[in-house]
């Protein structure tokens, strides 16, 4: 089994977001970076499959050098080797092209990633990679089992899930509960230091560009209603907020 897991490096979900240079640049000061939460699920399932079926697991990140602690963490969790495409990952088509350019001709059986990254949230990289490589893609995938060359998976649909069967190779956008997040152990952390991490130059160009950032307007004060008079809330929602 040859598995590629693509990970993003994103601000911790509790981060306070701010911008600099006249709101044209994301401010990285004081931000703790993590493996994208959805990518972390994909990685966890990839590691489980690699452990039970053998083969190799390569982890790929499109990002700058500051993503390397997250890549090392993925190696500590169980990836065998890593590749970083040295570029700022701001555009979906660009990131997907880089992944596809790397993966073509390498014969991966599975290309896993999160359903979306938690910074730009477009949720399309897996599908673009699938199309560019001519492979079927599914997302959001919440269960994945393999038997020989056949994958059984469950895709979340509105109000439920759809179970389906497809042949490898596949590109999958993953989400919980496909696997539980893994925490690296000391042996993993030690061995990760010497696992190979190749840095490659990008080969394509972005098709979108962020001109300016903006923070939402601050929220007004919360209007408190007494629990004894809770029914009054419904009147306010109807006459004041006009949402009923």
């Amino acid at each position, binding site marked *: 089994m040859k598995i590629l897991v693509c990970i993003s490096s994103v601000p911790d979900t509790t981060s306070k977001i701010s911008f600099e240079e006249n709101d044209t640049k994301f401010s990285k000061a004081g931000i703790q970076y993590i493996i994208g939460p959805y990518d972390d699920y994909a990685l966890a399932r990839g590691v489980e499959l690699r452990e039970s079926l053998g083969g190799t697991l390569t982890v790929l990140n499109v990002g700058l050098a500051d993503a390397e602690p997250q890549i090392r963490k993925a190696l500590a969790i169980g990836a065998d080797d890593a590749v970083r495409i040295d570029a700022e990952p701001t555009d979906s088509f660009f990131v997907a092209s880089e992944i596809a350019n790397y993966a073509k001709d390498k014969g991966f059986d599975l290309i896993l990633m999160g359903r979306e990254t938690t910074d730009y949230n477009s949720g399309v990289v897996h599908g673009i990679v699938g199309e560019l490589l001519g492979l079927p893609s599914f*997302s959001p995938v919440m269960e994945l089992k393999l038997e020989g060359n056949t994958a059984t998976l469950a895709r979340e649909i*509105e*109000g439920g899930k759809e179970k389906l069967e497809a042949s490898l190779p596949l590109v999958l956008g993953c989400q919980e509960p496909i696997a539980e997040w893994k925490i690296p152990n000391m042996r993993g952390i030690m061995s990760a230091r010497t696992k190979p991490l190749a840095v490659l130059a990008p080969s394509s160009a972005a098709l979108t560009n962020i001109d300016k950032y*903006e923070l939402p307007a601050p929220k007004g004060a919360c209007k*408190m209603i007494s629990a004894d008079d*809770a029914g009054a809330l419904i009147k306010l*929602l109807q006459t004041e907020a006009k*949402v*009923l």
Partner: protein
Amino acid sequence: MSVLVYTELADGQFKKSSLEAIFYGSKVAAQVGGSMTVLAIGSASDDELSKAGYFGATKVLHANAQNLASENIMAYSKVLSETAKSVSAKVVISAKSSLADAVMARAVGALKAGLVGNVVELPDTSNGFKVKRSIFTGKAFAETSITSDVKFIAIKKNVLPLEETSNSATVEKLSVDTGSLTESSKVLETIKATGTVSLPEADLVVSGGRGMKGPEHWQPLLDLAEALGAATACSKPVSDLDWRPHHEHVGQTGVKVAPNLYIACGISGAIQHLAGVNSSKVIVVINKDPEAPFFKAADYGIVGDVFDVLPKLTAAVKAL
């Protein structure tokens, strides 16, 4: 500049988010001086499809082959990219949904296009093509230029208030050869809650957290949701504990909702939960802890026991 709107059908009707996409598309077409075509895939009557005209469409292309009956990402995206080519679409629009994301993505790959998701306003076409989108799961916005020839945008719910006319659209049958694509996967089983309001589409949402104390105590919340005609949702701990199904989980790693009204019952309001609900128009928080962080993000708050407050709210709704 030709505009194509990709829509989704549920139970033979346009989803509300798709009607919003049609309306948004008609505004974009008017702005850039182009025509708009609506693409609908799946089963629906011509009568229903012609309703796209209420929201500004003049023409609907309907693809309804047998092999398109179930949601097939590969086949749907092929229909979308082929249609985009045949109508020379320069702007392709959809409402964001997990299926639409997957379908739009492959069409983006086929057409080598730039895509921007979670768009919250009409584009600025005065100088290039710029859209404002929500990023960092609702914590910020980014004005983004799309520089490719064909531009894809996925809009968030509630971007524009819908305006309805009495015009109807013409419906044309569309046939695209998707033969081999539908063989790449086989649907084994579809498990779907029936008779409930779809959560991502819902205008009103009632949501429960650990403060509900257990799945057996959910009835007062369900009663309020039923009285309001609201969808039900829950926090991540609740779905992790299997008190409620995963498709109800809203938050950073769950469904992101943008209803007119979100009522949170016994949810403390961790930042990961807020990420899934911060696009709601009005937020109501009911919690017995006056220090619950959720009150800071709320428009209306009640400090009290959910099991005391919920029946009062339900009674007040029924009395409207």
